[in-house]
């Protein structure tokens, strides 16, 4: 990651409250994940042990330590979405995207990425759109009242091609 970018982010926060989380969130927003060299830079610059930053990065679900796909699909697994069929959506997504289910990486994160890095699939707890359950989100856009049958149509908007 560019030193200039990092510098801007690190210097943006002038109060200690919320500073570390804010910096990591900004880096994540820029790069889609937390690159190792970025964490090392922050560690040196703020005089925070690397182990503490790595601890933060692995504790909070939001942070990815590996690069992610071009499009990120998040299936909501909140209670309202669960009773209205979220597990079936995940299963169907895994099948359509041909990603291996049940993968947990060494840092314990659930983020399945297709081989060509075009899509990443993960689950979130709740977007607060429970009245339109079940809900999935692609790159920040929310699709409510989802069903397994509607998924191919949504994916196609992001360049997915159906394998016959």
């Amino acid at each position: 990651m560019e030193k200039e970018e990092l510098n801007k982010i690190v210097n943006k926060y002038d109060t200690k409250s919320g500073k570390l989380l804010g910096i990591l969130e900004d880096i994540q927003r820029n790069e889609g994940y937390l690159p190792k060299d970025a964490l090392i830079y922050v560690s040196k610059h703020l005089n925070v042990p690397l182990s503490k930053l790595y601890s933060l990065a692995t504790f909070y679900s939001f942070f990815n330590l590996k690069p992610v796909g071009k499009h990120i699909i998040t299936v909501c697994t909140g209670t309202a979405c669960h009773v209205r069929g979220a597990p079936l959506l995940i299963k169907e997504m895994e099948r359509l995207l041909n990603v291996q289910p049940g993968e947990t990486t060494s840092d314990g994160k659930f983020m399945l990425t297709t081989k060509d890095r075009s899509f990443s699939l993960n689950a979130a707890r709740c977007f607060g759109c429970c009245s339109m359950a079940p809900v999935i989100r692609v790159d920040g856009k929310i699709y409510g009242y989802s069903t397994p049958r509607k998924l191919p149509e949504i994916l196609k908007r992001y360049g997915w091609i159906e394998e016959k």
Partner: protein
Amino acid sequence: MAEKLINIKINGKVYKAEEGETVLSVCNRVGIDIPALCYNEALAPYGACRLCMVEVVNGPGKKGMTTSCTLRAVEGLEIVTDTEKIKHHRNILFELYLAQAPGSEEIRKMAAKYGVTKTRFAEKVKPLDPLGNKCVLCGQCVRVCDEIMGTAAINYIGRGSNTRINTPYLEESNVCMGCGACAEVCPTGAIQIEDVEDKRVMKSWSNTKVQLKKCKSCGRYFAPDPMLDFTYGKLDPEIKEELKDLCPDCRRKLLSKKEILINQGEAYKNEK
């Protein structure tokens, strides 16, 4: 500064305690047996292992079960230990411990002491676990490395039941001093350190290798370099230059020689 002495009641008997002293500390002092894994006098109370639970029957705060390592002694506090309820919950906790750390003899012994010899729950066995399936995540190693040594070479990774302790990215640490304080405080002997030739290998911590210092006199590798630098930096007055590269045995030999010579009235050059 003398702390005010007050009276608290434990199991019906009155004991003296310093106001603000933890109840666990009082019990340890007066010989009342309370098990604990995450408690260390040198560290701030952590409240993670939940074994030291006692029941508050009277006092200014909330009544009921609470950890004695975080309960502070105040005038009028009345607690009981070892009630049927406490024993029942403690036994279930020990079943969980046995399942969590099947490789630990210490846990087996501790559980057996309180009457728990087997567990209903599936044992967590990780092949090639750097902590030998002995870690109970009491966090003492992390806290000692951070709060006491100020290094924070190791820390928690992940969250929940996936939590483990190790170096960032599971790579060799470049800040570890090799002091071994972590192994010293570990209640289950999970942390493995081995001195191999001129390096101290922190086997549990991603095989981090720390350079050992060679004694100028006898030639043996006796202590990690960074640890010596760290310690020397804290000494006031500063340690004499001639002693810095000597192992403890050779240091003793040199200082004894000096004493003998001084006693024999002979001046010794290189005073400073």
